[in-house]
């Protein structure tokens, strides 16, 4: 297993956001994470990437114990993520935003950078090579020099994805990537997600309310409610799970959308 | 002969002054001098020459003083610098001016060091140094009390510290036993109540207040309010009846002692004094909107008259050397704003133009001078 989540709990004062969640994500697996609003999905992401320190439980990744590890180390371990509500560097261009994702490859410090030491230059060159690959893959080349703040929402989400991908993660955490996309765009996104997994041979943990997308791309789906796991299995089983339907899907068009 | 800044009809004089920044209160001096020289020019100037007085702002910031002084000397080509304000500011340019042999006349600071004619022959002070003043107080304390317990409140800068030094000069090895407590304040402190409480609880029976008007007024009031009755001295800087005694409370200041050399415009004693009337007439004619309770106008007028005397003495030889020579050759010059009996005297070995003081006690209505005019020596 690549990611092992064991009894992770998180409380904020009186609010219990996670009440002991356990599940695994395997290598090269796309795992969908669903659940009602406020059921703790983003909180779980934040626990994995170290932004929150879980109040109980443990998270292991590729052998490392993540609980208690430093936040800025996560990307080096191989965990890349995007954020539910865009977390871009607003005054910077698309190119620079993505390059920050390659920060952890570099070793050049203040002095080497200021002097443009050969090592620093070599690093910069290799970062730029990675950049052009990612720009191509996500078709962001045309807007590379634009300030991110002026781009449409979905393009900004794509920049975030590019920023995560340039770091060559083993596990990609995607928080609602389909927000604001229309039907055909969601279809394309689904292809993209699968392609990323196949080409880069990575695992993806995907939070999304767009059932269409989740059911299409996921190998497995985990459902949360009130911070606890209520279902875990293949998309089809989870989708037909009565608990999941009661708590999350309801009886509308969505349930059948896939 | 080489006479920089001088033409047949004019002489250029420079001054750096704090027209902006924290010390901008002193800008009044510069304005008085500007008005004075203007009125002199209107009356024909000195020895037929008009005074071209260039007074510039340095904000009381030494690096700017350097810049402005260099501008005055190198660009404007002034003959000499006159009455520039401040100890750190003048210190910053002292070396430069002396190297260039530009007279630095009658600097507007009471620090003791301006009398150092051997190292800095081109720099001369003006008013009695704070240190001299403090020596006078210390001597008086020793004369009147057997075993005084002295407390000192001083501003934490060269001004305040000179008072501590002056008292040390007189007390010598006794300083540590006689001075039971010395505490400082910063000029930006909002109040000095805490310091007064500390000083009182030291058990002192004598208090020397080396403070600017605002703090002096606060101190005098607080000392009275907490029921402390020390033998109390206040720096000559803070004798203004209008700016210190009245705000503190005329009755709260009774018994307060100071050393005076000039006349305070707000002291009723000088209401009909011919000398002060001359100043008032000048102010009325030239600076009608000025606040007459501000002692800086009196000071500026006095130091301006002193310079006029120097220029008169120079005659037609306005070389820098002669200007310096005349500035250090003033004999018993009487200035209408100085106390009767106090005269301006300089010599090549005396760079302290005013070195006399007379003790005075506040009697509830006016400063009542007592004892004789005391000559302090620059140390």
């Amino acid at each position: 297993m690549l990611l092992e989540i064991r009894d992770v709990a998180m409380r904020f004062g009186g609010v219990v956001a996670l009440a002991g969640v356990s599940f695994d994500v395997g290598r090269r697996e796309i795992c969908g994470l669903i659940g009602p609003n406020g059921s703790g999905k983003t909180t779980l992401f934040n626990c994995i990437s170290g932004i929150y320190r879980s109040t109980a439980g443990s998270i292991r990744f590729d052998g490392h114990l993540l609980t208690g590890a430093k936040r800025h180390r996560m990307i080096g371990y191989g965990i890349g993520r995007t954020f539910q509500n865009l977390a871009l560097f607003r005054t910077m261009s698309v190119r620079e935003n993505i390059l920050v994702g390659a920060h952890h490859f570099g070793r050049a410090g203040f002095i080497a950078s200021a002097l443009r030491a050969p090592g620093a230059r070599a690093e910069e060159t290799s970062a730029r090579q990675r950049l052009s690959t990612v720009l191509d893959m996500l078709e962001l080349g045309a807007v590379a020099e634009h300030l991110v703040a002026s781009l449409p929402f979905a393009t900004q989400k794509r920049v975030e994805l590019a920023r995560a991908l340039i770091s060559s993660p083993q596990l990609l955490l995607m928080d609602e990537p389909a927000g604001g996309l229309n039907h055909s765009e969601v279809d394309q996104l689904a292809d993209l997600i699968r392609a990323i997994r196949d080409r880069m041979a990575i695992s993806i943990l995907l939070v999304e309310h767009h059932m269409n997308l989740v059911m299409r791309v996921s190998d497995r789906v985990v459902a949360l409610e009130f911070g606890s796991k209520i279902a875990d299995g293949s998309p089809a089983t989870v989708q037909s799970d009565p608990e999941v339907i009661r708590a999350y899907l309801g009886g509308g068009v969505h349930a059948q959308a896939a | 002969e080489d006479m920089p800044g001088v033409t047949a009809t004019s002489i250029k004089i420079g001054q750096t002054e704090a027209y902006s920044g924290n010390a901008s209160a002193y800008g009044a001096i510069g304005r008085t001098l500007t008005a004075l020289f203007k009125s002199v020019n209107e009356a024909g100037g000195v020895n037929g020459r008009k005074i071209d007085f260039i007074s510039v702002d340095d904000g009381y910031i030494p690096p700017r003083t350097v810049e402005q002084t260099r501008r005055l000397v190198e660009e404007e080509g002034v003959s000499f610098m006159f009455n520039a304000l401040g100890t750190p500011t003048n210190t910053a340019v002292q070396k430069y001016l002396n190297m260039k042999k530009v007279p630095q006349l009658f600097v507007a600071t009471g620090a003791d060091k301006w009398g150092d004619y051997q190292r800095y022959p081109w720099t001369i002070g003006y008013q009695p140094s704070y240190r001299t003043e403090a020596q006078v107080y210390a001597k008086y304390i020793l004369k009147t009390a057997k075993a005084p317990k002295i407390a000192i409140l001083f501003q934490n800068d060269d001004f305040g510290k000179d008072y501590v030094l002056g008292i040390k000069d007189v007390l010598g090895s006794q300083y540590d036993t006689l001075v039971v407590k010395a505490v400082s304040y910063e000029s930006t402190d909002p109040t000095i109540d805490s310091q007064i409480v500390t000083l009182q609880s030291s058990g002192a029976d004598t208090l020397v207040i080396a403070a600017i008007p605002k703090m002096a007024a606060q101190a005098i009031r607080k000392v009275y309010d907490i029921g402390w009755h020390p033998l109390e001295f206040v720096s000559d800087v803070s004798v203004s009846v209008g700016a210190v005694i009245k705000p503190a409370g005329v009755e709260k200041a009774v018994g307060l002692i100071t050393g005076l050399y000039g006349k305070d415009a707000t002291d009723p004693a000088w209401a009909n004094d011919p000398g002060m009337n001359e100043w008032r007439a000048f102010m009325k004619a030239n600076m009608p909107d000025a606040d007459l309770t501000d002692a800086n106008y009196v000071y500026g007028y006095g130091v301006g008259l002193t310079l006029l005397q120097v220029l008169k003495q120079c005659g037609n030889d306005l070389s820098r050397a002669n200007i310096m020579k005349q500035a250090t050759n003033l004999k018993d010059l009487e200035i209408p704003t100085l106390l009767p009996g106090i005269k301006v005297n300089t010599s090549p070995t005396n760079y302290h133009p005013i070195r006399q003081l007379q003790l005075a006690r506040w009697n509830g209505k006016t400063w009542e001078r007592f004892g004789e005019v005391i000559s302090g020596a620059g140390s």
Partner: protein
Amino acid sequence: MAGTRMLAIMAGLACAVAIAFALSGYHLFQLTMVVTYAIAILGLNIVTGYNGQISLGHGAFYAIGAYVTAILMSNYDVPYWATLPVSALICAAFGFAFGLPALRLGGLYLALTTFALAVALPQLLKYPALEPWTGGVQGIVISKPEAPLGLRLSGDQWLYLFTLAVGAVMFLLAANLLSGRIGRAIRAVRDNPIAAEAMGVDLALLKTRAFAVSALYTGVAGSLGAIAVQFVAPDSFSVFLSITLFVGLVVGGVASISGAIFGAAFIVFVPNLAEQVSKAAAGAVYGVILIGFLYFIPSGFAGMARRILQRMIPQRPAMLVRTEVGVRENGHA
């Protein structure tokens, strides 16, 4: 594009050198101060403009640099040029140490803390126990460097060229630093610290080091300033200095390297201009000029220059032609 920029910079430098032979001592002194303040403002810009940590107290680092140089020159007879590296190191250390607690504070709280440092420093310099070194309230007078043997330059010319050379090197280093990996991280932290951390930026390390570098720049400026003014005293470094540097930063342009030069020119020349307008209220005139400037050009000289450039060079339209989401065949390896 990069080539023309290089050319412009070289031309600017050549002019700056040529000026040394065209102007008199006093003007050179002023220009020396402009270069000095420009370095200080650049330092402030690194931490405040680029890294988003507001400092209202950089005058303190300027003062420390100045005192280090003055003490070394007067007490230990160290040559003026040799004091620069020492002062750089000491200021960087101070900056680093100061950055540690400052790390935890954001926005206003940091602004207060730095401001407090600037207020307290003159008092510390006056502290009796330090007087043997600092000279207490009297300060330290130091002597002016002469041009090295063989160069037929006046003291002012030499000092100006020396300062200019130091300044040029420091600007170049800053430009390198800010355009590379570290520079991106510095700005990323300003824009979104949480995301920056998730991208592997060690916030604590980066912020404290940025603070240290910033203090180093301002400290070296302080050293150069002390050499030029030949005098240091607590009164030279009141809070007003910190505020002045801040004004220079804002006027020059936040997060701009070249803006620092304009900002420095502003704080050197405008006060003189103000007092020529009115002696009675020189401060008010300066304040009005400052407000007026920011009123009409809120993003500073650099912002104005950027806008003019943008108008001259037609931009690609900001609107994006819609691209289909998809993957090319030659994807990521």
